[in-house]
């Protein structure tokens, strides 16, 4: 096992896959020459100059061209720069990319990947801080992967690059520099297979992305008080691993769902609803959802901190469940 950063794992995956499959190419804003605004493509600088290149600032064109390229047999990996900018080209995605396979009765394969950073960073404010994965969970037709470790991004992206469906991948800005173990040999992580990042018996915490790490920090603190969290990283949101979550809730009888996106109608609501439908009799307490407050992200660091969930929210929720405060 080697220890590399999340960015390095991403770069090495794209290189390995481009060498394996000549139909793979990748483009977007500021990746070819700059290496990505958060350094995601740093390790790709100077490699495959004809297959890794920059585009003009036009999301509609970027996503639309990817759709066309995929339809004629290529495997484009599109960098969306900031998840917030997906909104500027959203019709290409929700109306075209997510529907073509269905509308052609499965005749057209649509192997394309949309990937890029999301989530809060220091004072990036309302238009550069969003996590909008729930939107793509809501509109049918695209698979969603949200890795939280170098190991997971590599295994999940490899699976995405071998599938025939459109896939969107959200990479939290705070994760790119994080290091983790990655095997030397090739491996794939199947979609819909959650990873129990920490086993526990008192409360199940279903989470993804940056909140996986916040939940693990919370679990460490709570352990001192005798509360044991089971932290489940879903890793893929469409499809999501219902079986693992239900199995865990059957054990702990308590559930917290923690995500960075807005709490109101965030994907946590979908998980909560499914669990109460399918594991109602195993619940010993109400399900608690943790998410951002229902406002656009403020610029003020103090307010950003106030709006964004972190480990403290998990600790508070866990105590509420255990002690009935």
């Amino acid at each position, binding site marked *: 096992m080697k220890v590399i950063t999340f960015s390095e794992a991403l770069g090495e995956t794209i290189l390995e896959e481009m060498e394996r499959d000549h139909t793979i190419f990748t483009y977007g804003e500021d990746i070819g020459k700059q290496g990505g605004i958060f350094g995601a493509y740093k390790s790709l600088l100077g490699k495959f100059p004809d297959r890794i290149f920059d585009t003009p600032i036009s999301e509609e064109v970027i996503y639309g061209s990817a759709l066309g390229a995929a339809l004629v047999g290529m495997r484009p990996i599109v960098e969306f720069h900031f998840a917030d900018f997906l909104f500027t080209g959203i019709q290409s995605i929700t109306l075209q990319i997510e529907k073509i396979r269905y509308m052609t009765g499965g005749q057209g394969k649509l192997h394309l990947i949309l990937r890029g950073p999301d989530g809060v960073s220091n004072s990036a404010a309302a238009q550069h801080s969003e996590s909008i994965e729930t939107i793509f969970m809501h509109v049918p037709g695209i698979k969603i992967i949200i890795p939280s470790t170098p190991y997971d991004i590599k295994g999940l992206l490899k699976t995405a690059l071998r599938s025939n469906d459109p896939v969107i991948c959200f990479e939290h800005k705070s994760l790119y520099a994080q290091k983790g173990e990655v095997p030397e040999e090739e491996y794939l992580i199947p979609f819909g297979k959650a990873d129990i990042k920490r086993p526990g018996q008192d409360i199940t915490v279903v989470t993804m992305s940056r909140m996986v790490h916040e939940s693990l920090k919370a679990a460490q603190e709570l352990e001192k008080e005798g509360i044991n969290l089971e932290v489940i990283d879903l890793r893929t949101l469409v499809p999501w691993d219902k079986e693992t979550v239900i199995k865990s809730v059957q054990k702990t*009888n308590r559930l917290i769902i923690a995500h960075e996106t807005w709490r109101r109608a965030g994907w946590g609501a979908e998980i909560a609803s499914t669990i109460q439908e399918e594991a*109602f*009799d*195993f*619940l*010993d*307490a109400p399900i608690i959802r943790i998410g951002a407050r229902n406002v656009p992200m403020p610029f003020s660091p103090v307010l950003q901190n106030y709006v964004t969930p972190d480990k403290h929210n998990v600790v508070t929720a866990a105590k509420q469940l255990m002690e*009935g*405060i």
Partner: protein
Amino acid sequence: MYEIRMPKFGLTMEKGYIERWFKKEGEFVNKGDSLLEVSSDKITNEVISPVSGILLEILGQEGDEYPVGQIIAVIGDKNEEFLLERRQGKEKSEGSLTKQPQSQDIESTKKMTGPINKSDIKASPLAKKMAKEYGITLSQIPGSGPGGRITREDILSFLNKQKTEDFKIIKLSGLRKTIIERLSQSFHQAITLTNSTEVDFTQLKNQTKDRRVSITSGIIFLLCKTLLTLKQFNSHFEKGVLKEYNIINIGLATDTERGLVVPVIKNAHKLGLNEIQESIKNLSDRAKANKLTESELTHSTFTITNLGKMRTDFFTPVLNPPEVAILGVGRIIKKPCVIDEDKIAIRDMAYLSLSYDHRVIDGADAARFLDLIVQYIEKPKLK
């Protein structure tokens, strides 16, 4: 209103244990009725109601211990029934089992309070499912979750409590604790062996009968003679020190309602047969009445445990520490026996069981002890 307090049965009594109540809350009691049974570490007695009235409230629960003088119940007249109503009303809202009220007034209170509405009970889905599985009514269970919600924990602790209702925990009396302590000590420290032999009691039985004393008195008299010869059996062994006594204090294991007590016949070797008889009677009467003093229960140098009138032939008596030996006498029964010149005769036979601490007494010594006492018993000289 009249308060019933934990009574003081004797000078030394500091607390009492409520064995059982004869009356229920809400019941009318007459002056002179037995209210409850209380035991101290020495005796058990009934508590008589000093007044007539309604037993408004029972504060002392069965199976619990209370200090002397503590209020354990309240008796009042009809006008004071509000106290009872208030209490019963409170209990209902707490969700405990409804009592059977005695009077009309209480009946109306019950109607006003009404049974618990099922939809008022908060329980988690899991708790509801478990309650169904175990056949538990949720209204029996207090909820510890937020807003009084019944949770898995509450169901589990209710089930546990139910399990413990299959038995009752007997509180150990002070006497029983002393017995436990002494016997455990003896058992864990001494290396106890038991030698047994059969002995012909016919002559001793006849002679004691003639002298109008018990066989026990005769045995003790002869035991003293044996101990005067084999002094090592009249010893204490404690903390590595072996003390051989010049005086003989015989502990007499005595069965009482409250358990085993061992009153001590002091200087038994100086007593004649009749004096021993008197001493035994005095001590055993006082033991049964629970009136023995501390000094009458201590400083024995050798103990005898006599099951002569009960169904046991031989047994393994446990040492009474720090003593080094104890003699057990089994049931005396008539048996066909071979006696002089190969004749068969009907004799009063019994087994003696001598337990001894093998750390300081050898098996051969024990055999010699039995041999000597058997000689004394079979050809008794009671002067």
